[in-house]
């Protein structure tokens, strides 16, 4: 495999699976935060994860419905948290430290009450 000397952020980062330091899936790169500077400068500063990030990629009415029913949470993962990029994006910290495990923890509270979980 060629050692690639660049990173294509739409095809190699956007919509990729995020895994935390324990290799547990913790969402997708639902969008990326970019800063536009003067003179056409552009830099990517964070990964955005959450229902709000997804909803904003939908057109018109779907977007409104999605934000109404699925919530408006979004978690910002600073780019400095990215550890290794392969076919997935491995982060340096645990999902809980990054604020990415909220929904999963709430679901776990419910599920773990059932014997055999």
């Amino acid at each position, binding site marked *: 495999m060629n050692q690639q000397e660049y990173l294509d952020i739409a095809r190699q980062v956007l*919509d990729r699976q995020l895994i935390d330091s324990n290799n547990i*899936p913790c969402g997708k790169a639902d969008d990326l935060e970019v800063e536009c500077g003067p003179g056409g400068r552009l830099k990517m500063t964070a990964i955005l994860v959450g229902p709000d990030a997804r909803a904003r990629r939908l057109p018109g009415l779907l977007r409104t419905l999605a934000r109404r029913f699925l919530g408006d949470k979004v978690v910002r993962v600073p780019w400095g948290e990215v550890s290794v990029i392969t076919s997935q994006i491995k982060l340096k910290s645990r999902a809980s430290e990054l604020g990415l495990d909220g929904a999963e923890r709430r679901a776990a509270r*419910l*599920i773990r009450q059932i014997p055999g979980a």
Partner: protein
Amino acid sequence: MKKALEIFLGILTAMGGFVEIGELVFSINAGAKFGYSLLWVVALGTIGIIIYGEMAGRIAAVTGQPVFYLIRERAGFVVGLGTLVAANLVNLLTCAAEIGGVAILLKLALNWPYRVFILLGLIFFLLVMWFLPFQWIERTFGLLGLLMVVFMLTAILLKPDWPQAAAGFIPNVPALESPKEYLVYAYFAVALMSSIMLPYETYFYASGGIEDHWTPSDVPLNRIIVTVGFVLGSLLAVALIIMGARLFLPNHIEPQLPGSAALGPVIVFGKWGLALALLGMFFAFGGAAIETCLSAAYNLAQFVGWPWGKFRKPGGAPRFALAWITMLILAGLLITTGVDPVSVVEYSIIFSVIILPLTYLPILLVAADRTCMGAFANRWWANTLGWFYLIILTIAGLCAIPLLIITHGGKG
């Protein structure tokens, strides 16, 4: 030695899981209406599901990634979401139909109310899916689904006209009485093909490969399992067509399914035939209910990025667990409304063939992609056959709704 056992069990599981209520309904009806003429569709569809099943399994073994990761990454968020919604709608309808089919079978054995059996069936599936590990579920339902072999024996003992049956494997259009009949024939061809190539078969199979922790060394194993397993499974569909042709066609009977399916084994084997047929169908339909339910949860979790997999146990993948529980309950609610499971499955199959190209195209593109698959990317024949089927399925998909409307769901 261990690999040999794994291959052997994999083949039997694939075979036992091949037939579900959709194939059963359309196979028997195909035989009852058109004799052996539609056997070529079974052959065509089987080759198609082998091609795409092999690709899906290969993708899982080589990339370690499930199909919906790749769909979202390559086709993008919006198209991926569309595929997710479409695939899961088909899953929901199919799951509901299988649960209804199971309830009908139970009602044949014990004359309790239909809805009680739906509830009992739901509880049974919930318990099985909650407590049993993935492999146990697959093996148990797959192997017990093999009791459907009684239909193969029945078909043989009904002494079909073998040369005539063999002729049915060559694509043909029989001489029919009216133009309307030709449209009904086309409708059955489309529906039968679709029931064999339901998308959950490939997506679920790939997720299963990851549940089983496949690696690239499992690529040959995958190939053998899909080829031998699906070919053997297709023989069950062939047997059902033959049975329909021998039992119902001569008397112009429109069989009431799935119950009337058991008539064949009863006639040939008596009480034992009935027991085996009902048990076989119970596990075939039940296995399909579980698979479509899990497939919906896999699709959702893999698209959104949640931890997923039975191997994580419910506590380790709680949203995934909630997803399949919710899906099962929704399917149960849908079928409790009293809608006929056979009608539900007809609609799900027709809808499925419309979205089949959308669900199969990403599999073909990823399996052919050298950057994902390296040395395991499609050879020329896999690409050729893959595109051939995509074109056929697109044509079938375009014809599906017009045919459904004009033929009133195959009733002519």
